[in-house]
């Protein structure tokens, strides 16, 4: 087990560090509630204004509402930006220490990203469940609430799929990190990721609501595994074999990105020119 200790330490130190930012979490939560509420009201206006199109829609309004709250609660799981510590390390030259450590750089950075992500997402999801899942129904606004999972099996499958979503998101973050190291600049790639993430994960609009012609592409591209697949498992729009197919797709992209990332990182680190003194 000793071999795993440095990685466990990297995970927990990042987790504890992020937990210090309670004010940031609260502010983020407030922002997410606002966006969630506007999203829900806009979706409701479209669904209720066109009953026929709504009946033919691949997901119901109730499902789309739950999708919206899930998307807001899980905002921190999206691979928005590379690890800021790595960007700093590239600028200051301290990244060379990571090469000297007797641990695997890919694994170390990967668990650090996972720690960073889980620490940010845990308090926000908890607050969001409280607000959108418990307080809203108590206020008599049950139809706009975050609904519980469709069934026990859906809940269990969702937990598995969400864990894979985090694993996939970290694998994508690793690719961003490697681009940061290779280009010595975090700004460009971070800016580029924002629109990609917001559209292709389903964060802006559930992927099923985009025009049918785009459906096949949207459902198999890697970012669907970060949000859309676990969400559809949650409210049982994906069940049985289809749910397992979704989970398989998440595993496929995660494995592919990890292999690609490891290979690429080894090459980048081998010809890394260290800046700073």
């Amino acid at each position: 087990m000793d071999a795993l200790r440095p990685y466990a330490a990297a995970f927990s130190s990042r987790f504890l560090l992020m937990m210090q930012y309670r004010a940031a979490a609260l502010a983020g939560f407030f922002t997410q509630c606002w966006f969630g509420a506007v999203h829900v009201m806009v979706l409701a206006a479209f669904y209720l204004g066109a009953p026929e199109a709504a009946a033919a829609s691949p997901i119901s309004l109730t499902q789309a509402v739950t999708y919206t709250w899930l998307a807001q609660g899980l905002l921190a799981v999206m691979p928005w930006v590379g690890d800021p510590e790595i960007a700093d390390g590239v600028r200051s030259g301290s990244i060379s220490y990571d090469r000297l450590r007797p641990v695997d750089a890919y694994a170390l950075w990967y668990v650090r990203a996972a720690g960073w992500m889980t620490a940010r997402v845990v308090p926000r999801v908890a607050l969001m469940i409280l607000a959108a899942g418990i307080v809203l129904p108590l206020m008599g606004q049950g139809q706009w609430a975050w609904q519980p999972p469709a069934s026990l099996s859906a809940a269990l499958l969702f937990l598995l799929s969400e864990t894979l979503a985090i694993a996939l998101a970290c694998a994508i973050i690793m690719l961003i990190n490697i681009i940061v190291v290779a280009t010595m600049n975090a700004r460009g790639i971070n800016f580029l990721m924002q629109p990609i993430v917001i559209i292709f994960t389903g964060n802006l609009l559930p992927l099923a609501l985009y025009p049918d012609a785009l459906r096949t592409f949207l459902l198999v591209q890697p970012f669907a595994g970060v949000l859309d697949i676990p969400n559809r498992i949650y409210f049982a729009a994906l069940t049985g074999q289809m749910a397992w197919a979704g989970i398989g797709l998440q595993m496929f992209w995660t494995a592919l990105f990890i292999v690609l990332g490891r290979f690429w990182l080894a090459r980048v680190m081998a010809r890394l020119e260290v800046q700073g003194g």
Partner: protein
Amino acid sequence: MNAIALLGCYFSASMRSQMQYPASAMMLMLAQLASTAIEIVSIWALFDRFGAVKGWSFGEIMFFYALIGISFSFADFLTRGFDVFGSDFVRTGAFDRLLLRPRSAALQLVGHDFRISRFGRFFQAAIILAIATSSLHFVWTPQAVLLALWTIAGGIAFFGALFVLQAVMAFWTVESLEAVNALTYGGVYAGQFPIALYARWFRTFLIFIVPLACVAYYPVLAILGRSDPLGAPDWFLPVAPLAGFIFLGLSLLAWRFGVSKYTSTGS
């Protein structure tokens, strides 16, 4: 040197520093154009699936979307100093230096850093406005142009006020509060749709507490020549942007109060 000339100096200094790296400045602008353009994709997808929403066409929504985007891009351009006030001025103590200079702190913050990249959003919104105009067969009469400029001015004042309020909070919290993002970026998002789509409590909030509807929804109705389906009187629609300026005035009063209570954190 008067205030306008001073701002001119700040402006040209900011521009020259960014044009040291012209390729980088252009890329940032293009990136912002692209990243703001995606919002319209989701709106288009919703219209594609559900059709017109409560009597509003896609062209009309694009009109709301474009005008709020133009207002916000200018406000964002002018208020970068307030945006980074907590992190770059209060936390570091750099604000003390601003207070020592014989010019108002607010003026120096307006001039702090004009970002060329902000025009990415402006160009994107201008393109959407052109598309909306042609899809609605809208004719820009001189009256409509004036009304649009008045609306944009009110919108700049409104969003400027939010950035000032964000800076005021930094006097007490040191860091700029991310929660204001809900009102700035979230305001842009909420203002993209006619507020008639929203629940009553949210409409009330956007009219009376944070008067976003007065700089977006009402004047755009006046430009489009539509009456408010919720029953606001017709005379009120073109007057509404005034609320943006009142909001800015109140936020500057809060700013003055904040400055008077300021104690340095620097060393």
